[in-house]
């Protein structure tokens, strides 16, 4: 009973916008009570998913989404040593970047945070990322997902060129290509041959999960 309520408290801490220290303390307490780190991780992800739904329904604000992502990162940091020898696996590996010609990173960073918190391994290529760098990462890091972001309309032209480059490099059939950002629309995503479109950071996680399910 006590353990179940502790797990519930951790989940609620995300939706109630609790202080980071409180969440850290709850997690440490849960570990001390021998609650499995995987159960704690899953609880955190459930809490984050609830936050995401509430954000999309307009009940929570962007800052609350961001602080939940920060709390999730802190929880992950505490749990990491306990999980290293466990059987937990990443849901998938994602390479993400803002395309060349664009230096905006808020959306990309938020997506990275949400994907990491949801259980993906994220390799962030940064901003102003060339086609070559995306291709290199697809070859070398062997991700399941290549995710591209932009804020500027002008950068959409660059985004169009990346799927053909992945094809030329012979890696297109190994990855799911997901796109997002302010000017991006589902029609544009289809037009450029992307596999998915995320309308915001919360949706990006759902789209990544769906894309990987289709692949498996």
């Amino acid at each position: 009973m006590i353990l179940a309520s502790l797990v519930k408290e951790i989940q609620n801490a995300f939706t109630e916008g609790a202080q980071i220290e409180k969440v850290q303390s709850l997690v440490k307490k849960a570990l001390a009570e021998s609650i499995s780190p995987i159960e704690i991780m899953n609880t955190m992800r459930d809490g984050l998913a609830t936050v995401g739904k509430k954000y999309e329904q307009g009940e929570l604000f962007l800052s609350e989404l961001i602080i939940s992502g920060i709390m999730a990162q802190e929880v992950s940091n505490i749990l990491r040593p306990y999980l290293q020898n466990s059987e937990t696996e990443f849901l998938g590996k994602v390479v993400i970047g803002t395309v060349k010609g664009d230096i905006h990173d808020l959306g990309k960073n938020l997506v990275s945070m949400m994907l990491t918190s949801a259980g993906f391994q994220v390799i962030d290529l940064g901003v102003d990322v060339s086609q070559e760098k995306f291709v290199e990462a697809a070859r070398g890091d062997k991700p399941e997902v290549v995710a591209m972001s932009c804020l500027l309309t002008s950068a959409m032209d660059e985004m169009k060129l990346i799927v053909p480059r992945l094809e030329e490099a012979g890696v297109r059939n190994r990855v799911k290509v997901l796109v997002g950002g302010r000017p991006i629309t589902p029609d544009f995503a289809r037009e450029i041959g992307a596999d998915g479109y995320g309308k915001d950071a919360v949706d990006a996680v759902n789209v990544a999960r769906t894309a990987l399910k289709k692949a498996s």
Partner: protein
Amino acid sequence: MTTLEHKEPDCVPITELAIDPPHLERITQTQHGGEASIQTAVTADRRAEEAINGVTVLAYRKLGFEIIPCAFSSPDGWVSSRTSDGAPVDEWGRVISYDSRSMTWVPSGSIFSAPEQFDQFPFPDPHASGRTFGIEDMKKRIGDEIALAGLVKDPFACAWEIFNVTNFVRWLYERPNFVRHVIERIADFNVEMIKRLIDAQADLIVCDGDYAEKMGPLVPLNFFREVILPNLRRQADVAHKAGLKFIKHTDGNINPILHDLVSIVDGLHSIDPSASMDMGDLKRRYGDKLILMGNVSTDNLCRKSKQEIEQETKECIRTAAPGGGYILSSSNSWYSDAKLENCLAMVEIGRRYGRYPIHVN
């Protein structure tokens, strides 16, 4: 300006809060090669400031714009500091990067990784000499021909950028008094700066900086009501005391805080159509209280056809112009990736259909 008094002028005024230098050069068919930033002063090189002012005035005159924006300058002799990898840092501690496509400097990072670092950082002085260099130069060029809008950056939006979003949000929850204090200090700066802009003969004040994104306000409403909006009011009061209007720019869906904003500011810019901001609804509810400026989608200026922009502009005029109180403008600014033919089409439609009494089918 008649429209600011909610009366019908001869014609709907038209302007933009910013036009990226590549467009300025195309419009004026000059090449001044300067770099600009409406978001922060990047240089105390007065010749560079004069150059960008010069091409801006030329462009605004050619377009027939009725309002021209101008921010305050950096102090005399100011030189930006640098990060360890050589990136320039502005007066507020924001790392700035040059975007060659738009020929503008944009904030891209922060030098602060802890609140204590900000407390030790030399805070900008609104009384430093040279602050009004740019606006005085602008006034000399335009005289009384074009209305002069003095620009300040909203304290909340400034703090959001100064600390990077992640740190701002983290400290908002872990160190709320610190964040409140920073916003108040920036508001103190703005209060003094607005006085100086007024002394430099600004005709109105525009407060730049976003409160919201597509889904809604960036932070919870209680923080708006306890911290952000009282500090906005302090700035608006300075403008009002001098008989000037105070217009607040913000992108995003501000419907949840609209009622609060109406009691503080005289006008709103952006009326962001990509974020559920309905111009018709605003005009109906607040048309006699709020100057409405914007609503021609910046995204559409980049993506849509000329004919679509013409229709969109006509609709904005039809909805918002009757009775006065409307300034035609895009919902943000003319980015370098906007199609210039679309931007010019917006202006052309404004001249054709913006004559009072308004007749738009």
